């Protein structure tokens, strides 16, 4: 678009740069605040007379090292990264990270499989009820977990027919997460499959390939970018999930990152603010990095706008 011609610098500052600046500050301030809190000592955090915007002890330590031309890792550790060390060494954070990865990866694989097959059927095959299936998938995509969590927790606690309890077990979450991941993947991938020209498959089938061969060898490789982005979003959605993880898992060692941080680093009235903020940042960074690469696909998927 560019800047409309004939607009004065003052006006441009007022209607463009200034509002944009405020939006950016508004958006990013909490992250700055998390970081600053995570590198302050507890004593400093609870001192009402120091300027809370600046981590004094840490910056002084760094300034001294820069001035004296000497590096001291232990001084940095004690003054800046005390809470980070505590989080990684003395809490179950690393275990939570492993649990989250395991649950997210398995439920993503399951959901991608079901999503790919269903999306292919919806996008390509004509059979009785295909439109109904499409509408059903769309409706289930919009059903929020908070509508289902009570009966689902009852069912996970005593699986119908099997009489197993999957409560306090990562598999309970792996069973629950496809409820929102499958509709999501199916919806995203149906749109993606539709953008691949039918003629390619038809040509392969004329040459003697069966339909399944055409699907696996022709359509899937072409749809790989869509499959990868659906997988990445499914992964992050399950890594971010909170409600089911909060209800189904009770042992501290089995928790996922979001639930572990919220429930184990706040003990009654005691808030481990430094560790909480360090954990919140550490838990967010991987997701943020992944998303920033795939954001276009995500937006296109959400809004239903056809890409490519």
């Amino acid at each position: 678009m560019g800047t409309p011609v004939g607009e004065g610098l003052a006006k441009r500052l007022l209607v463009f740069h200034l509002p944009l600046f405020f939006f950016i500050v508004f958006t990013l301030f909490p992250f700055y605040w998390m970081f600053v809190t995570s590198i302050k000592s507890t004593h400093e955090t609870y001192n009402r007379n120091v300027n809370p915007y600046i981590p004094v002890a840490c910056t002084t330590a760094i300034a001294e090292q820069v001035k004296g031309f000497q590096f001291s890792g232990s001084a940095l550790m004690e003054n800046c990264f005390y809470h980070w060390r505590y989080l990684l060494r003395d809490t179950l954070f690393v275990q939570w990270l492993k649990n989250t990865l395991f649950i997210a990866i398995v439920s993503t694989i399951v959901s991608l499989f079901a999503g790919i097959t269903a999306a292919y059927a919806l996008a390509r095959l004509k059979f009785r009820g295909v439109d109904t299936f499409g509408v059903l998938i769309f409706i289930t995509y919009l059903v929020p977990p908070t509508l289902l969590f009570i009966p689902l927790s009852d069912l996970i606690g005593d699986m119908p027919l099997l009489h197993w309890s999957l409560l306090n077990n990562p598999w309970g979450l792996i069973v629950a997460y496809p409820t929102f991941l499958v509709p999501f993947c199916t919806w995203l991938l149906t749109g993606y499959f539709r953008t691949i020209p039918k003629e390619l498959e038809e040509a392969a089938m004329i040459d003697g390939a069966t339909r399944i061969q055409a699907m696996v060898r022709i359509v899937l490789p072409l749809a790989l970018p869509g499959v990868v982005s659906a997988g990445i979003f499914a992964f992050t959605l399950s890594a971010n999930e909170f409600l089911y993880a909060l209800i189904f898992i009770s042992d501290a060692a089995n928790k996922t990152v979001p639930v572990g941080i919220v429930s184990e680093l706040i003990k009654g009235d005691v808030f481990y603010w430094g560790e909480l903020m360090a954990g919140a940042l550490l838990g967010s960074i991987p997701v943020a990095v992944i998303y920033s690469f795939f954001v276009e696909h995500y937006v296109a998927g959400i809004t239903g706008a056809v890409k490519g």
Partner: protein
Amino acid sequence: MGSLEPRCPVARGKIGRMEEKVQRDAGEEVAHASLPPSVEESAASCLATIRTAAWSRQRAIGLLERPDVLGYLLMLPAAFIIFSFIAYPFGWGVWMSLTNKEVGMSWSRVSFIGLWNYVHLWTTDGVFWNAVRNSFLYTGIATAVKWVLGIWLAVLLNRMVRFQRIIRAAILLPWIIPTVLSTIAFLWIFDPDFSVINWTLRRFYTWMGWGYVKGPLWLGDPTLALMSVTFVNIWRGIPFYAIAFLAGLQTIEPDLYEAAAIDGASGWQRFWHVTLPGIKPITVVVIVFSIIVTFSDFQIVYVLTRGGPANSTHLFATYAYQIAMVGTRLGLGAAVSLFMFPVLALVIVYQLVYLRKEHR
């Protein structure tokens, strides 16, 4: 010939090769006429079975070429998951809401109590009505503010020439990181004694010479707490609106703006008559999506206030959690969350009708 067992594994794949082998074996068997008749018989029946299997394999491949058969087959995994873990639990939830089920109560002791849970909530539960009011206020205010600010931000981003990618990625952060984690940061930001808002307020008051101010208890007063919760929702939601609207803006033909400019339309007129209609389809999708997510929200209230102070900031979801998971009354809790259903259904149906109209 030894045991017949390994010669006849019909059920285990590679039928074609097995068939060849058995045919060979059967030929041998014919040569050795002295074999006991039982062995010959079973070899023949085995051959027949395998021939049938090979034939049905051909038939199965043929069936898979039919779009209706393959279609149902491919829908099966998704349909199974949707039926067992969405449709069935939904029905189960409706049933639970008609009983007095509690945590740890065996189903043999649970009794059917009809609509008592719903009637109880509707007629006697003040906290429930407060949650209803909060849910509508929260959704209404948050959606309206996110919509206005989202369009504004989208227009600003659309005007950007340099650094667009990096700014867009930065703006998106609130939306993409786990909600509870950013809400934890706000829990600390809203701290009345040691945190940044009230520190800044106090400094500002002294600097202006207005004397000492303690600063409000952001999460300790019912109205302020609801506003704080809404604020966090807005903070988290704006990026999604802005990025979606930005995608919408980029589909508008630049010619339309030029034509409007030639006709002498002012900036505002262009916005009203070109921009807004241009992004209408995306607006409907985004708002419907956002209403559903906001109306059924749980995490922000759970982390910031747990429904407090004095149960004044509950939404449907947090109140249902409070009753069912903290208070163990599963049946009543299921009824609370099912009260969301009419509103959600209405919004979803509207969305479906709208999409169908667009398609035509």
